[in-house]
């Protein structure tokens, strides 16, 4: 912060204004790369799924199709935004805003390194949970405001699904904070530092919770195989069937930003964040990005591999499999931590 103050004459500007400006700069430094990552995640998705299905994927715009996301963005920006008659105009336009707000605001507490974090708030994990639970409002409000049967069906499905998987997700996180003894994401990553590198991460004692957390994350972001809220084959495009142009693009951005967020959180909570997996090699943000990259690849891999779940099977998996598994493992971790066999 000090070098920045040195650049301009600090005595001319009141300090609160300077602090606000500096925070805004930091917010932009997180948001803009996330937006860029979203653009190239769509490209990665089309390439990865292309190769999995023995196709080439986009390869016309720019070298190896690398300019494809930019072409798509320009196309979506120049398209007309159609507002259906009989829709609720205000809420119709508000819904994508809620979606993207929830997807971006949670980045405030994600640590990129031991010092690199926008806001090291004490209850960071709760903040993340509270904000990710807001995302469902974008879907519900969009489905209702569109005044369309398909959109409404998508919204209803999404509401039930997200409430179910949020509980499993919350229970999985309880295991993490039992091990770390803190709600701050910075402390949680630091608690995973140890002499054994990879073996000191939360992944080892909390393996079932990691699996539950990641699958719940896939369900929370409405990604395949849990994408019944979109369900092209039965309800066309679900909650965003009436959206076009930029309003549609914002839903799209929010979905991919949420995928990156879930990957970043899973990397910080279970895979040691910026810590290096091999003892002796220094940690740093490249490790975090490598872990996020692997988890994002898993998202794409799931989409190319699994058929869509039937709706009752989604509910069964959430309520009858994940929640009991997490409850049992919380008990196991509690007893394990009090016993002399706890090694972490």
């Amino acid at each position: 912060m000090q070098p920045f103050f040195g650049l301009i004459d600090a005595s001319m500007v009141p300090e609160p204004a300077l602090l606000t400006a500096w925070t805004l700069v930091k917010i932009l430094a997180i948001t803009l790369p996330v937006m860029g990552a979203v653009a190239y995640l769509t490209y990665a998705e089309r390439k990865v799924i292309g190769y999995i299905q023995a196709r080439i994927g986009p390869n016309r715009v720019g070298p190896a199709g690398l300019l494809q996301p930019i072409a798509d963005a320009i196309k979506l920006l120049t398209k007309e935004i159609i507002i259906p008659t009989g829709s609720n105009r205000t809420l119709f336009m508000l819904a994508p805003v809620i979606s993207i707000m929830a997807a971006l605001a949670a980045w405030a507490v994600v640590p990129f390194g031991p010092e690199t974090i926008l806001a090291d708030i004490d209850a960071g994990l709760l903040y993340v949970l509270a904000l990710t639970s807001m995302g469902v409002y974008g879907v519900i409000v969009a489905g209702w405001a569109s005044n369309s049967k398909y959109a409404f069906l998508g919204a209803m499905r999404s509401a039930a699904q997200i409430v179910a998987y949020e509980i499993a997700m919350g229970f999985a996180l309880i295991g993490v904070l039992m091990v770390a003894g803190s709600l701050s994401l910075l402390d949680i990553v630091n608690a995973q530092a140890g002499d054994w590198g990879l073996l000191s991460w939360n992944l080892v004692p909390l393996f079932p919770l990691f699996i539950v957390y990641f699958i719940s994350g896939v369900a929370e972001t409405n990604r395949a195989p849990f994408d019944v809220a979109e369900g092209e084959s039965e309800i066309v495009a679900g909650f965003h069937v009436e959206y076009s142009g930029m309003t549609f693009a914002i839903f799209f951005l929010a979905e991919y930003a949420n995928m990156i967020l879930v990957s970043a959180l899973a990397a910080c909570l279970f895979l040691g964040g910026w810590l290096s997996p091999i003892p002796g090699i220094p940690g740093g943000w490249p490790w975090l990005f490598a872990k996020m990259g692997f988890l994002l690849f898993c998202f794409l891999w799931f989409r190319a591999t699994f058929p869509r779940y039937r709706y009752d099977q989604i509910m069964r998996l959430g309520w009858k499999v994940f929640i009991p598994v997490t409850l049992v493992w919380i008990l196991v971790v509690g007893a394990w931590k009090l016993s002399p066999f706890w090694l972490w």
Partner: protein
Amino acid sequence: MDFLSAIFYLFATILVLSGLRVITARNPVHAALFLVLAFFSAAAIWMLLEAEFLALTLVLVYVGAVMVLFLFVVMMLDINFDTLREGFWRHLPVGLLVAGAMVLEMVLVLSAETFSGAPAPEARGFDYSNTRELGAVLYTQYLYPFELAAVLLLVAIVAAIALTLRRREGVKRNDVAEQVKVRREDRVRVLQVPRETPVGNRPDAVEPGEAAP
């Protein structure tokens, strides 16, 4: 007026206005969304009081779960506004009586010594953890009330399930264990079907059974 008070008055204004809109909005979905806004503003005010655990839990539980289910129901209902407004004037005296009693109670509580007499608690530093303090008190000093509340909630869960659980005749259910146990051989039978007799009496006709496999 310092910066914090300005923020407080901003959120308090939003809270009161959205609270008013909850009861005056014509559309029940709008009313429910204004209630969400009211919860959010209340959480922001709690955050100003350094009660971040309560603030975030309010958002997580009420905004993230309770109001989602509430909206779910409100959106599904076919509400007739005329019948909803019918009894307004008839119920107004009762409503005013209840509202008056509530205002009186709040005045009595808030004007008591503990609220108006005591000085405001000192603001803590950045390293003060409201969550940690709350947890420490909850699991030591208030352990029994806490456990009692937990048992009460458990009873409520069991009661809710017992009320909605009905055995219905003639309902077909999936047995998932049975489904998982199924192997390919149980479902698929591969048959060798011999070739059909060619149509007509062509000279190159082949007798059935002679055909190559």
